[in-house]
């Protein structure tokens, strides 16, 4: 609950303050957003499963974003940035899909 409230406050703060992300971080934004989506869907599913926990949600959210950005950074340094981005997107995409399917089953019983 706290996590959801905090996220909403954060989004509203973003709307009001209109912060800009530093240029150095911009290459990692797309992957970070995909990772955040994965964490959000995971959290929603956990909520529906009755397993939700604020701390686990926030830690997984944070680590998802940081690890995804780090993998892309590492890939860029090694010259396989595009491939590693694809790998991250594939894995996170599959997870988002399965979690979304579980949420759908919960909501529509189908």
């Amino acid at each position, binding site marked *: 609950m*706290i*996590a*959801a*409230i*905090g*996220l*909403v*406050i*954060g*989004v509203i*703060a*973003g*709307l009001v*303050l*209109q*912060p*800009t*992300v530093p240029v150095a971080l*911009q290459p990692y*934004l*797309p992957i*970070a*957003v995909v990772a*955040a989506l994965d964490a959000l869907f*995971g959290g929603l*599913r*956990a909520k529906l*499963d*009755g*397993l*939700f*926990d*604020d*701390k*686990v*949600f*926030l*830690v*997984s*959210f*944070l680590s998802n*974003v940081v690890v995804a950005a780090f993998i892309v950074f590492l890939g860029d340094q090694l010259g396989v940035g595009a491939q590693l981005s694809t790998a991250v997107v594939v*894995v996170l995409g*599959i*997870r*988002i899909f*399965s*979690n979304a399917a*579980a949420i759908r089953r919960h909501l529509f019983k189908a």
Partner: protein
Amino acid sequence: MTAPVHPPGRRRPDESMTLLVEVMEKPLDPGYAEAAERRAAAERAGLPSRRRGPGVAVLLVVAILLGLLTFSAARQLRAPQAEVAAAREVLENQIVDRRAEVDALQRQSVALSDQVEDLQHTALASEDPALLQTLRLDGVVSGSAAVTGPGLVVTLSDGDAAQSETDPDPSARVRDADVQTVVNALWAAGAEAISVDDQRLTSLSAIRNAGDAILVDLVPLPGPTYTVRAIGDSDEMQTAYARSGAPAYLQLLGSRYGIESSVTPQSDLSLPGVGNQTLRYAEPSGAGESSQPSASPETSSSDTEEERP
């Protein structure tokens, strides 16, 4: 990769794809289950399961920061890149500026070549009137002088299929060969001067495709309608043009690709000149009077008057 030890016969058939199986079958972070277990254990032990105090504050701050970060990242990714737009604007301005520069220089060039021609004429008028007459005719035929007179106007328009937003059909566009066919038929029908979309054709003009655009003398023509103006005896030209292969060709284009075309006689057309062209061959005027350009089409200039600006 070392597989975990299984008794033989209980090996999973998809053992070699553990990574994918893991991703597919356990999309939920195992942390959630562990946390739920811990909570249940704490409840069984009679401990308070709810966090409070500083822990809650830390969680709230982290959540706010994550919300802020994710939202601003998403916003930044969605927004049109300011630098890209600015760069595009700079390029657009440059194009407009350069185009204006080109126009100004072209006007200057036309004015100067008119001046040169005037001086030439005044110099020749007293010395050699016959040569002056030849020069005037040459100017009409080679396309360097602007001309007015009656003639034919042939228009070609891209078919509708070429302009559809979703799935434009390139074969419904007017091609260079189509314009060439019309122009050649008009020359053969006795045209004395022809322009395509205000580009006067000279004896050295080329009509060709570059990508999707038709170029006349390297100047791209704006589609989708192309206007070919030809000066000459409009009645005779119309008859001769109708006898040529071009109308049948255009009809074929119309029925197969939807390319529309029309032929209209006009009593008063005026075609621009291209100004003085590079002199490639010259001989002294005393040596021979028959130094007409050989590449010019057949001509009789009875209907054509040279336009003096």
